[in-house]
């Protein structure tokens, strides 16, 4: 027992607070009432006027916090945190053709970025090639277009894959894109075990929030476990899934919902691998997380701390993991795109700074800071430079990184951390009662909870209960335009032409054979990943592989809940 608050002292503190409440406070309130009857976080969690030792009376240092690098990791996953090394500054980038994005990658690396993060365009995310009818108008718009391994070679041209780590934001076709990356490494002469990076590969949150899906949940889970199984053996430093709350929050969830649904997804993946007969400690250390950093500073900070403690408990107690690495929740953070405003866009720099500070004080392992123009388009080079500089200022000027978990021990922060954990576990229990996250998704449970929360917040902004500076308050009539990045239709033409050339020059017989194999493997129980790898090596395209799987697995349809 390492209880922080002595019982006699606590009694005295409670008495003092009672007399303060009925005395000084009451006197002031009678003359100057508070601005609101109820104060709440951006997620509408009610907050008290003051937090004292009474609110964390049961807090046990060893049990509930631990030192950094020790179970339950509330204070951080590494013993040195940012005194040893800063978080990875990783700006999500991708637009136009692979040639265009390769240039942006070199620009970012030249400006001190320490890891790459690839944004793919919608056709790539959804398993369509650039020459598909469904891709027209979308090519290179939201990210870079990738059709075959030729594009991947161009994308990473001049970038040594054993020196940088790469994150790929891709979900249903994640195996295909990782396979292409592995083939590029082969061509660079780099063995798989030297490759570091992350595939998002989190299909569950697609059904819940981001909604880039192709296949129904069950075959999708099989593709994911296939990839985890392959990587565990052959690409041991690859983070196989980035279990993502980011999109859940962007879709309008509360902070508690983000935490709960994300960890419930994590439980779903671990369970799927365990059900396949894998040893939990063999793969769990390569699962990583991805959270949102929204504007309510303390709510976010508490969310990260609670997430670490909850995951440690889940892995140790629920799944019986024995390796401390399996207990650690390591996470990437992105500041909240949905908090940015098209109105008075320079204010977005300030929002992003506050959000990034919460992520850093919350102990993130890597961070993307949004650019001020991202409500209007993909960022320009000058906007993305400010975003990166924001991280560098926090790291090297602010002093925040001098000590670990600087807000740990704050009555408010510890009480909020406890409350986040309690409320998120309540959701997880509810999901368990439904039979787990997949049945819950099939019933539309998380989807409806998020839609309700999004609508509630929208009503609060419309009734001015919640302020959005520059939008519902402090508006300006005349606003200057800012320069934006415009993706022209020319990128589409160039990309389609490049794909035509690839298709004309490859060995068609081999392609047909690969596709037949893929259909057969999809129908059998064999691991799909080695076959995907063989196919991409011979320039079979992304859509061709997805279509082969579509024929066997079918496609998921939007249940269209309002």
């Amino acid at each position, binding site marked *: 027992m390492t209880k922080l608050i002595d019982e006699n002292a606590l009694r005295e503190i409670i008495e003092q607070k009672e007399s303060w409440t009925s005395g000084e406070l009451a006197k002031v309130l009678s003359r100057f009432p508070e601005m609101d009857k109820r104060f709440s976080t951006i997620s509408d969690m009610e907050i008290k006027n003051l937090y004292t030792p009474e609110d964390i009376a049961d807090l046990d240092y060893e049990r509930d916090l631990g030192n950094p690098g020790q179970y339950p990791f509330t204070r951080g996953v590494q013993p040195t945190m940012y005194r040893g090394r800063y978080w990875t500054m990783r700006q999500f980038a991708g637009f136009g053709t692979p040639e265009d994005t390769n240039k942006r990658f070199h620009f970012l690396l030249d400006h001190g970025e320490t890891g790459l993060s690839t944004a793919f365009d919608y056709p790539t995310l*959804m398993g369509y090639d650039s020459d598909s009818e469904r891709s027209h*108008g979308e090519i290179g718009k939201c990210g870079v277009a990738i059709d075959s391994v030729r594009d991947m070679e161009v994308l990473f041209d001049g970038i040594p894959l054993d020196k940088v780590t790469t994150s790929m934001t891709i979900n249903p076709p994640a195996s295909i894109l990782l396979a292409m990356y592995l083939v590029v490494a082969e061509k660079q002469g780099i063995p798989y075990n030297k490759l570091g990076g992350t595939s998002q590969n989190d299909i569950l949150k697609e059904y819940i929030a981001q909604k880039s*899906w192709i296949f129904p949940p069950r075959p999708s889970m099989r593709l994911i476990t296939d990839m985890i199984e392959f990587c565990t053996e052959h690409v041991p430093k690859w983070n196989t899934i980035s279990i993502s709350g980011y999109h859940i929050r962007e*879709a309008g969830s509360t902070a508690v919902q983000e935490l709960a649904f994300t960890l419930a997804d994590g439980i779903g993946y671990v369970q799927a691998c365990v059900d396949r007969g894998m040893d939990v400690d063999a793969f769990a250390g390569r699962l990583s997380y991805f959270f949102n950093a929204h504007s309510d500073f303390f709510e976010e900070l508490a969310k990260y701390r609670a997430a670490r403690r909850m995951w440690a408990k889940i892995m140790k107690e629920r799944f019986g993991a024995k390796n401390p690495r399996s207990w650690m929740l390591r996470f990437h953070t992105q500041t909240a795109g949905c908090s940015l405003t098209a109105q008075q866009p320079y204010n977005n720099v300030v929002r992003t700074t506050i959000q990034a500070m919460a992520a850093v004080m919350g102990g993130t392992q890597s961070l993307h800071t949004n650019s001020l123009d991202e409500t209007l388009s993909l960022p320009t080079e000058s906007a993305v430079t400010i975003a990166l500089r924001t991280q560098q200022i926090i790291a090297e000027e602010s002093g925040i990184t001098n000590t670990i978990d600087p807000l740990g021990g704050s009555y408010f922060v510890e009480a909020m951390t406890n409350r986040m954990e309690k409320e998120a576990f309540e959701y997880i229990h509810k999901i368990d009662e439904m039979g787990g996250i997949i049945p819950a998704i099939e019933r539309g449970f998380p989807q409806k909870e998020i839609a309700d929360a999004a609508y509630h917040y929208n009503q609060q902004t419309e009734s001015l209960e919640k302020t*959005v500076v520059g939008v519902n308050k402090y508006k300006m009539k005349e606003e200057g335009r800012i320069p934006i990045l415009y993706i022209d239709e020319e990128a589409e033409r160039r990309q389609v032409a490049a794909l035509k050339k690839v298709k004309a020059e490859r060995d068609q017989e081999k392609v047909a054979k690969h596709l037949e194999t893929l259909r057969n493997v999809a129908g059998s129980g064999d691991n799909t990943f080695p076959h995907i790898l063989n196919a991409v090596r011979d320039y079979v395209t992304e859509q061709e592989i997805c279509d082969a799987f579509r024929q066997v697995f079918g496609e998921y349809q939007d249940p269209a809940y309002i």
Partner: protein
Amino acid sequence: MNQGKIRVMVAKPGLDGHDRGAKIVARALRDAGIEVIYTGLHQTPEMIVNAAIQEDVDFVGLSVMSGAHRVLFQKVTELLNQRGANDILVFGGGIIPDEDIEFLEKLGVTGIFRPGTPTDEIVRFVREKAKTKMESLGAEL
């Protein structure tokens, strides 16, 4: 407009999965007593136009967040014209830069609502346009 009830189809064309805005607008219209049909995600312009005609709606509201609005809005308006359904009014919203507003207006898109628009502004827009439409129909009769 059967029995004076306005019918709106809220539609998500293209591959983009961002439906937060579309759903909020759909709910706000519904809460305002307007009949709302929501198509769900990943619709092609053909699917949207077929559904709009079949459902006999007065409006189609398109939501695009992916930057593909020029191509997708154009296809929907063209198909509506081809099918002789240009009495169905098209409005829309999403991440649409200033530079594209004129282009969309020329296509006949009657209202563009960008982030930060209060939902009651959209409700008001739909009611007013519906009223004008009724009056002009009355004049024809």
